[in-house]
């Protein structure tokens, strides 16, 4: 039971890190990134492969951030001129592209069998319970650190400029802000944080596979950021905890409703999560960072 609770805490922490990363891109920069699962996967695979290859875990995590961040910068650079709805389609496509590569490049990723035996910090020297406790503490410290950093970023001149350009890009450009450069930086920074979340996931569970990086992850994280409201870092962390509470709470569905197969229970859980996102958006639309109002009538 203690191990289960600790594992749940770790997952909540990793989701909080992803939500904090998305918050930089979406909450501050006003850009949508539906390819979140792709950056999560890039981070997870980079760190897993390089640490299996002998790199120390902390260095592997940094490498994961650098690579996820660079790919984020590249994608942002390619899509600078795109309006939000086009960007949504491109980023969603990017996530699917990464999943295809992970599933098919057997020489690198071992395909759908996934990669196992990913080292965790001091795993060999500790009992499983001690390892769980250590990792849970580590995750809490990391979430607090990233929360603190992104809160400061939000208040910094760069953060204020980012919010200004999310509100009105033209006005920010007229005010002399290097709009394009800042958008690329914000996207890269957020992607690096999401990649870091992926790296941590691999080192904790010691196993990753392409199926873990379905676009469903993006839904969970958007749900977290939305549920937390306002796009503030604290909201992202709070939202991640709520999402995990819902996901874990519905795990026992099968026991409550008899005669349902595993597939049906899993389907019901995902239906619930999807519906919940819609309900929360209906109840708290002001909690969303508003997409710039379109000039079209609201039909």
């Amino acid at each position, binding site marked *: 039971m203690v191990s289960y609770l600790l594992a749940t805490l770790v997952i909540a922490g990793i989701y909080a890190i992803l939500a904090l990363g998305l918050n930089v891109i979406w909450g501050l920069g006003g850009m*949508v990134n*539906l390819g979140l699962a792709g950056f999560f996967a890039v981070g997870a695979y980079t760190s897993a492969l390089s640490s299996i290859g002998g790199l120390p875990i902390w260095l592997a995590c940094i490498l994961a951030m650098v690579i996820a961040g660079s790919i984020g910068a590249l994608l942002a650079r*390619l*899509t600078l*001129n*795109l*309006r*939000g*709805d*086009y960007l*949504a*389609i*491109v980023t*969603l*496509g*990017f996530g*699917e*592209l990464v999943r*295809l590569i992970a*599933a*098919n490049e057997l020489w690198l990723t071992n395909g759908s069998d996934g990669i196992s035996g990913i080292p965790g910090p001091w795993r060999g020297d500790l009992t499983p319970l001690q390892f769980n406790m250590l990792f849970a503490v580590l995750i809490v410290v990391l979430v607090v650190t990233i929360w603190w950093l992104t809160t400061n970023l939000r208040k910094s001149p760069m953060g204020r400029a980012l919010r200004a350009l999310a509100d009105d890009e033209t006005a920010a450009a007229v005010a002399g802000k290097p709009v394009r450069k800042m958008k690329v930086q914000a996207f890269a920074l957020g992607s690096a944080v999401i990649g870091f979340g992926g790296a941590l996931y691999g080192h904790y569970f010691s196993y990753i596979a392409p199926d873990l990086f379905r*676009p*469903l992850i*993006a*839904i969970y994280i*958007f*749900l977290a950021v*939305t549920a937390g409201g306002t796009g503030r870092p604290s909201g992202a962390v709070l939202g991640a905890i709520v999402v995990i509470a819902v996901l874990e709470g519905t795990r026992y569905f099968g026991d409550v409703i008899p005669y349902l*197969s595993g*597939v*049906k229970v*899993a*389907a*019901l859980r*995902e*239906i619930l*999560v*999807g*519906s919940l*996102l*819609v309900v929360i*958006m*209906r109840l708290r*639309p002001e909690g*969303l960072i*508003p*997409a*710039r*109002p*379109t000039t*079209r*009538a*609201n*039909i």
Partner: protein
Amino acid sequence: MLDLLPQFLLNGIIYGALLAVPAVGFSAMFSVLRFPNFSVASQATVGAFAGYAANVWLGWPILLAVVAAFLVSAVIGVIVDEVALRPLRKHGALTTAIASIAGVVVLENVVRFIFGNDMRGYDLPLVRDLRFWDLRIGPQQINNLLIALGIMAVIFAVLRFTRIGKAMRAVADNPGLAELKGIDSIQIGRLAVFFGMGIVGTGGLLLGLGNSIDPMLGFRFFLPIFAAAVVGGLGSTPGAVLGAMVVGIGEEASLLLLSPAYKSAVGFLFIVIVLSFRPRGILGERAY
């Protein structure tokens, strides 16, 4: 390898014509409602399974299954829109688009709940491929092509000649002005979703007819469908057809260079390349 090119070209044209069906539905909804409705991905699955239920469970012929696919996905599309999406539209295109992804999750899992994860096939007679010159083509492919072309002709006729079509184009061009002229834009939006999602569901059935179907069907095709609509220009009906041809032929031709696993990634490549040069697609938005 190059001697295979004519065969790939032929396959690409047929596949492009099938892809054009859901792409046109997606594009028509975008032109009226101004947001990318991602739930198209799962509505294609809904259509494919509605057709399956009609064809296998009830024993209906394929043409009637097409009608069933159209009606079921059209009605479900309108319900999802009324319950989840329309109230959110005033908060902007992106908010609505994200809610529509939640719609994908819900619909896909409703299909999974009813039908399970297993692969299923339609009840179709096995027929030998036709051969001419060095090319092969399946009679089912020809049927699908004819159905796709028929649907396309009906859509064009409706948009071009009927009052509903004119009203839709008016709302797409300028909703404020259309409202002044006494066009009920909410009603037109509802009609756009009904026809759009119906067409998408039919497209899902056609794409599924070639091989087996499972709840991930629509999701597997989401990249090519969106790529077709985006490459041609979001919201433009001829653009969606042109985009579908480009993506369809491109995907089949990519088999000369790439492993089949990456076929659907070709759509992504086209999106990035075309949008780098023309951020509004080849034909631009809302070209009729």
